[in-house]
């Protein structure tokens, strides 16, 4: 028998691979797949709809309109100083992105079971591509926010002075993406064992929105201690308040952002660890 030195083998399949060592080299090898999956997400989403990509803009606008009427005009929950429309849109846009990432990535294993039990590629490609395509949508909607702000400034008599804190926008977006991705892959890994979790997620994310300042500004909750604590514990709270602070001025909540960053790092580490364990045993469970 010819003895081969370990270096000559390209692939070595062993019972368990170290879960804390994601194979980044392999991930990089499949970068074209990542690119194509992102494009697929973006192009196939609105096929066979009359309005097509217009929905990207219409969806947050309609939601904003609803919230403005319900919570801003009827319930008078919107803060003074900025038009309620802008207040709600600036909360809805990042929240929709976060919720979309969590909801979609949490279904990674369930929706792609057919492919995942037949072909091998680094599974992490799937949730990462979902996150990136959601971010692309987010950027378009952020553009919408800027356009609406511009319209208010031109015709609505709204005095808009961009804050210098806007330079932190990319960092905040990254933080939001990591929170969504971390939560998503954690749930996706767990749903392979507990399918019920899948149903719980969309409900939970919706519930979490009410524990965030999307609808009610943080100041209005300040006197209610329990509610205030709940909002403070939600790592998406600093993301949304920071987004508003960057666009409409105001103090950046640096403590909150630091907390959210720690939260994201822990979530992603734990999520990645469990995800990597599950991706190897997944084919045996389904």
């Amino acid at each position, binding site marked *: 028998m010819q003895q*081969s030195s370990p270096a000559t083998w390209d692939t*070595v399949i062993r019972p368990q691979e170290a879960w804390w060592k994601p194979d980044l080299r392999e991930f990089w090898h499949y970068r074209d797949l990542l690119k194509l999956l992102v494009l697929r997400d973006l*192009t196939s989403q609105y096929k066979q709809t009359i309005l097509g990509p217009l929905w990207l803009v219409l969806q947050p606008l309609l939601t904003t309109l609803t919230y403005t009427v319900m919570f801003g005009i009827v319930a008078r929950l919107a803060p003074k100083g900025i038009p309620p429309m802008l207040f709600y849109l600036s909360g809805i846009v990042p929240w929709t992105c976060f919720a979309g990432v969590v909801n979609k990535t949490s279904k990674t294993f369930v929706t792609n079971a057919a492919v995942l039990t037949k072909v091998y590629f680094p599974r992490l490609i799937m949730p990462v591509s979902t996150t990136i395509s959601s971010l692309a949508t987010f950027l378009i909607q952020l553009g919408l926010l800027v356009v609406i702000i511009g319209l208010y400034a031109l015709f609505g008599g709204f005095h808009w002075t961009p804050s210098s804190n806007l330079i932190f926008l990319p960092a905040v977006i990254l933080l939001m993406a990591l929170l969504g991705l971390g939560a998503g892959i954690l749930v996706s890994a767990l749903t392979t*064992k507990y399918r019920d979790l899948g149903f719980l997620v969309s409900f939970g994310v919706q519930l979490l929105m009410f524990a965030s300042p999307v609808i009610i500004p943080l100041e209005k909750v300040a006197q209610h201690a329990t509610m205030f604590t709940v909002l403070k514990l939600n790592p998406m709270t600093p993301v949304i308040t920071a987004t508003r602070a960057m666009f409409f001025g105001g103090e950046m909540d640096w403590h909150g952002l630091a907390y959210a960053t720690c939260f994201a790092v822990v979530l992603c580490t734990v999520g990645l660890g469990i995800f990597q364990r599950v991706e190897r045993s997944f084919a045996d469970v389904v």
Partner: protein
Amino acid sequence: MERTLVIQAEGVRKRYRLGQMGGATLGEDLNVWWAKMRGKPNPLIPIGQENDSQRVGTDFWALRDVSFEVEKGEILGIIGKNGAGKSTLLKLLSRITLPTEGVIRMKGRVSSLLEVGTGFNPELSGRDNIYLNGAILGMKSAEIDRKLEDIIAFSGIEHHIDSPVKRYSSGMKVRLGFAVAAHLEPEILIIDEVLAVGDAEFQRKCLGKMKDVAQSGRTILFVSHNMSAVHSLCTRVIWLHNGAVRMDGETDDVVRAYLNTYSEFSDEKTWSADAAPGTPELKLTRMAVERSNKDAPITWADPFRIAIGFRNIGIDDGDLNFGIHVYNGEDILAFASSWREWSTDTPPIPRGDRTVWCDVPGELLNSNDYRVVLNCFRQGKLLFRVEDTVAFEIHDTKREGVWYGKKKGVFRPRLKWGSA
């Protein structure tokens, strides 16, 4: 000659948990409990576990100590019954699941055609799906750019390449999927039963492509139930049985041994004096399908003999005749024939143990299962009939040409064709 190993599997074992003693998690436990409360069977026990020898307690060992090596340029066939571990082995080799014990080492890019066309997006066009499918299988975009025209031409669906895949027929999807996979140029190609699909023309293309791949020094693992395809394509065959390698060697030897083991037909029957069918004067004692090599399966080209052994106890005029009806697997009467109809030498049969036989030429009956019904006549009248005599199978292992699907028709005689 220098040997270059491209696959080395050492002591590979794979366990699936059956979990009837309780689940690994709370979730499984709750599941079992809930099923029990509704009076349903335990949902954790897989359906259709046949090979009991593979079950040890609550564990199911799909693979029990499999070791083998594959050299560069080999076309290795993997055969075995359903549940023998073929699919599990393929899943391990294509990295979809991990072994419980053991190591597999591989050299070069590995591609598997476990199921062609997986990952197609129904909304996207055929062209977009070529890119997507190629990328899932590990190709770079630049690589697909270069091969795009070839892939489209190979698939034979140029006209519909820009229509969404959801409007494709299932045949078109398979062709597109295979076309992508065929252009992967992997060092190791794993193929599982893809020849079962497509028309003759497409099969010809696929096999041609496989042979090209093999000739360019790359390695193919070919898993199939189709012995004629295995026989003509593979240079070496591994036979898996109950999760272990039962035989590993030359294609001819392994295929022959495999076919022999799984031939369920009793091609010889003998009856004891009291159980023998017949009348008090005439008893059938033995029926057999005989051929030159008793241990070899009958292939299409082989002649064989149907022998009828009987004992004449009380018929003195000896005016007896024997006829056979041969039915194929679809229960179509392939032919009927009798002794006195064709034999030039048909003396009266004296008392005692006698044998009458019928020689069936090779290259006549199509590959199929067959059973023989015996009719015994005296003075032109039916004396008795035995429905349940011998059965045999004609195998199709050597074939020229490229069509590996099942040939139609009862007969497949060698005919002379010409043209003018």
